[in-house]
């Protein structure tokens, strides 16, 4: 609602002042009684404010503004009005009796005091109610106009009582009020918004209002000489107009309300239906089971629409073999026949754009479905699809030829939409659960992958070997392994499967078996790559490849033999020359080309080793690490510098140092798996194992 408080407070004061002013003037007039007193102006004011308040209230209801209670305000006003009216009648009646004496005059004073108090209450309440209503009106100009009209109508009888008569203004004002009133009289759509209790109280007040106005009109038309409260001839126009308008308004409204009552009963039933659907929606939200949700969908919609049959179909676009998670009130055979027809005539039932459902009346006359002998004579179809791409439809069947009204059909369509949201929610929850399971699997996989890495580094007396790795995802596509060929030679393998994550990790697991069985035969690097390529070609999908660096470190001959299968080149620090070499020879990744043409690309190399030499094997994740905000790569230069500057460290520390360097460069934005292996050749000890 538009906040009345935001509306200028000065208008409240204005309304209050006018009310109090008119009250004070009236009191002034009344204290100087001259019998017979025409007090018709007071009931007229009460009547006028009462009827205007009611109009404004109606207006407010029409514009859909809440904020205060219609019946509460009406009750307050009518009780105050009736008491005030009674108190006005009492002294006048007493004054007309012959036995007016000192005792009665004392009572008169008390009654007059009470009367004044109630008048203050009444007019303040009336003015405030009116103000609340007015400030709830649409535009500021409407509000101002209504307030002005209201104030003028309140002030007019006061002016008249003072003897100031402005007939032109008087008529103009009442004509305006009359036109406004009549235009409002027939706008009764506000009645629809009343609930059952409010309907009854409103009807009661409207009838009371018509009774009051009828009495006043009767008094005007048939003046009685003995009437202690006669209507002054000068005010009869005023009273007539307000009386007729009030009577017209209250009578017409109560008549409409009366006629509306049977419709209202239907609306109440709809309210109950709606409530069922809302309850069902809330239930659906709680559900974590898609199947339960779909069963509830059929059950609830059948209950709310009083359908004879309801079923949910999972539509199989490939053929008529659908799934039916929920069937009520119809045989599976009948449904299958219907679905077969729907599938065979895909264009027969087209949804229009506005409605997301389809209602088929007179099923037996339908050219497609009419061929089936069914107990159903009308049917509603609500198709919907879920985020996982599955297509569904809810069908409601009725034995009546026109079993579903438009209104309820729409309500159900909202419910279907709501269920769809819940179902999507359920699906995503299930996905999350599946993901959690997968993550657990991955954790196990990661654990297994860790076990792939050799724990005991062989020949530790002759070479200091350390390996370390970081995976971009939970499990990586990098792989390294050792194989002790004999007491002086060790084969070291570093490999990187294309891609990352789970598919790469699965291939790693596959390759581990292959590589290990190949290594058992102690092959020389060239032979190893040739055999491995054949294996990879057989095992890998098209487009998957693996880069391998296979080295044999012979600590007896102090020589390194290696072959590079498309892998990042080996970095060799030559302690004697005090130089770093990048051993980038020709070589092609495994799995790219087949058999002999691959073998032709192979090249095995030999490099002399010395005590203190360092060999660094790594994957492209190291050199291709990038700054998070740029394209600059860590690169070979930085790697070589890092090795050169930290060559005094042992293998493990050197690995750590390099990884830390890479991490600080890339600000820990890991994009690819990183693996690193450092081998430091120790001083050639003259003791055992040397032949």
């Amino acid at each position, binding site marked *: 609602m538009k906040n009345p408080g935001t509306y200028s407070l000065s208008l409240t004061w204005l309304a209050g002042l006018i009310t109090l002013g008119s009250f004070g003037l009236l009191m002034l007039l009344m204290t100087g009684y001259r019998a017979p007193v025409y007090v018709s102006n007071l009931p007229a004011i009460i009547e006028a404010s009462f009827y205007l308040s009611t109009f404004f209230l109606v207006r407010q209801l029409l514009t859909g503004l809440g904020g205060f209670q219609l019946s509460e305000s009406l009750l307050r006003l009518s009780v105050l009005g009736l008491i005030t009216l009674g108190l006005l009648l009492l002294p006048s009646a007493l004054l007309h009796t012959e036995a007016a004496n000192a005792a009665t005059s004392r009572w008169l004073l008390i009654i007059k005091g009470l009367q004044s108090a109630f008048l203050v209450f009444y007019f303040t309440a009336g003015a405030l109610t009116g103000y609340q209503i007015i400030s709830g009106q649409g535009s500021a100009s409407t509000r101002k106009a209504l307030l002005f009209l209201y104030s003028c109508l309140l002030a007019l009888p006061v002016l008249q009582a003072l003897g100031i008569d402005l007939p032109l203004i008087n008529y103009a004002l009442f004509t305006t009020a009359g036109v406004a009133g009549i235009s409002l009289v027939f706008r009764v759509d506000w009645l629809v918004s009343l609930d059952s209790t409010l309907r009854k109280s409103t009807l009661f007040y409207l009838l009371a209002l018509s009774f009051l106005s009828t009495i006043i009109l009767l008094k005007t038309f048939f003046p009685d000489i003995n009437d202690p409260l006669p209507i002054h001839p000068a005010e009869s126009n005023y009273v007539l107009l307000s009386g007729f308008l009030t009577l017209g308004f209250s009578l017409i409204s109560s008549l409409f309300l009366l006629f509306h009552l049977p419709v209202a009963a239907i609306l109440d039933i709809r309210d109950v239906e709606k409530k069922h659907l809302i309850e069902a929606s809330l239930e659906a939200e709680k559900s974590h089971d898609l199947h339960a949700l779909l069963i509830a969908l059929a059950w609830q919609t059948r209950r709310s629409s009083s359908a004879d049959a309801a079923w949910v179909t999972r539509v199989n676009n490939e053929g008529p073999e659908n799934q039916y998670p929920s069937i009520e009130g119809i045989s599976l055979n009948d449904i299958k026949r219907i679905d077969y027809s729907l599938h065979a005539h895909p264009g027969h039932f087209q949804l229009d754009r506005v409605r997301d459902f389809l209602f088929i009346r007179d099923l037996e006359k339908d050219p497609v479905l009419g061929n089936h002998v069914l107990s159903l004579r009308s049917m509603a179809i609500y198709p919907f699809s879920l985020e996982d791409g599955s297509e569904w439809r809810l069908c409601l069947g009725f034995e009546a030829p026109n079993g579903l009204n438009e209104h309820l059909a729409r309500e159900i369509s909202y419910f279907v939409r709501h269920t769809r949201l819940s179902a999507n929610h359920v699906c995503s929850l299930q996905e999350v659960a599946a993901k959690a399971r997968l993550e657990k699997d991955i954790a196990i996989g990661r654990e297994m992958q860790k076990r792939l890495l050799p724990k005991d580094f062989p020949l530790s007396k002759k070479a200091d070997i350390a390996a370390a790795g970081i995976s971009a995802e939970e499990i990586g596509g990098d792989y390294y392994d050792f194989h002790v060929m004999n007491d002086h030679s060790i084969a070291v393998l570093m490999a990187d499967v294309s891609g990352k994550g789970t598919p790469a990790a699965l291939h790693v697991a596959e390759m581990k078996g292959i590589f290990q069985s190949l290594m058992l035969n102690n092959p020389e690097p060239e032979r190893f790559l040739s055999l491995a390529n054949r294996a990879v070609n057989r095992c890998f999908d098209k487009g998957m490849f693996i880069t391998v660096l296979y080295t044999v470190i012979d600590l007896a001959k102090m020589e390194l033999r290696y072959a590079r299968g498309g892998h990042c080149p080996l970095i060799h620090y030559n302690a004697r020359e005090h130089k770093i070499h990048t051993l980038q020879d020709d070589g092609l*990744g495994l799995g790219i080309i087949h058999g002999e043409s691959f073998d032709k690309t192979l090249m095995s190399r030999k490099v002399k080793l010395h005590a203190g030499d360092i060999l660094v094997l790594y994957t492209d994740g190291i050199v291709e690490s990038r700054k998070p905000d740029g394209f600059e790569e860590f690169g070979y230069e930085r790697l070589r510098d890092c090795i050169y500057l930290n060559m005094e460290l042992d293998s493990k520390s050197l690995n750590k140092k390099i990884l830390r360097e890479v991490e600080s460069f890339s600000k820990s934005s890991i994009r690819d798996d990183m693996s690193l292996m450092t081998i430091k050749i120790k001083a050639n000890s003259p003791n055992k194992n040397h032949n």
Partner: protein
Amino acid sequence: MEIISKLSEDALKISLIGELDANGAINLDRIISKAIADGYYKIAVDCRQLEYISSAGLGVFISYISELKSHNGKFVFYHLRENVESVFNILGLQKVVAITPDFIQAKNQLHEV
């Protein structure tokens, strides 16, 4: 991102822009497989704006090498940036696909059988 333009009856140019990672690879695979289905077996790949290529991206090209070859077609990569060329060289791809410095040479290469 890729921009595709037709060069001749059986030749196509694909310009790669930005990074070709695992996600981009799926799209690229779709493009190349459609190109081959449409009868384009000679594919020039403009790498002028290719900033990074992942192994999955390379895998897409690798997976079609033999198919193109069987139709007398090929990939010709040109205008490679230093880092991308280094990736190609380390993997040894220069042995199986043609790499040329510019478009004119790429076009010539494309029509050599």
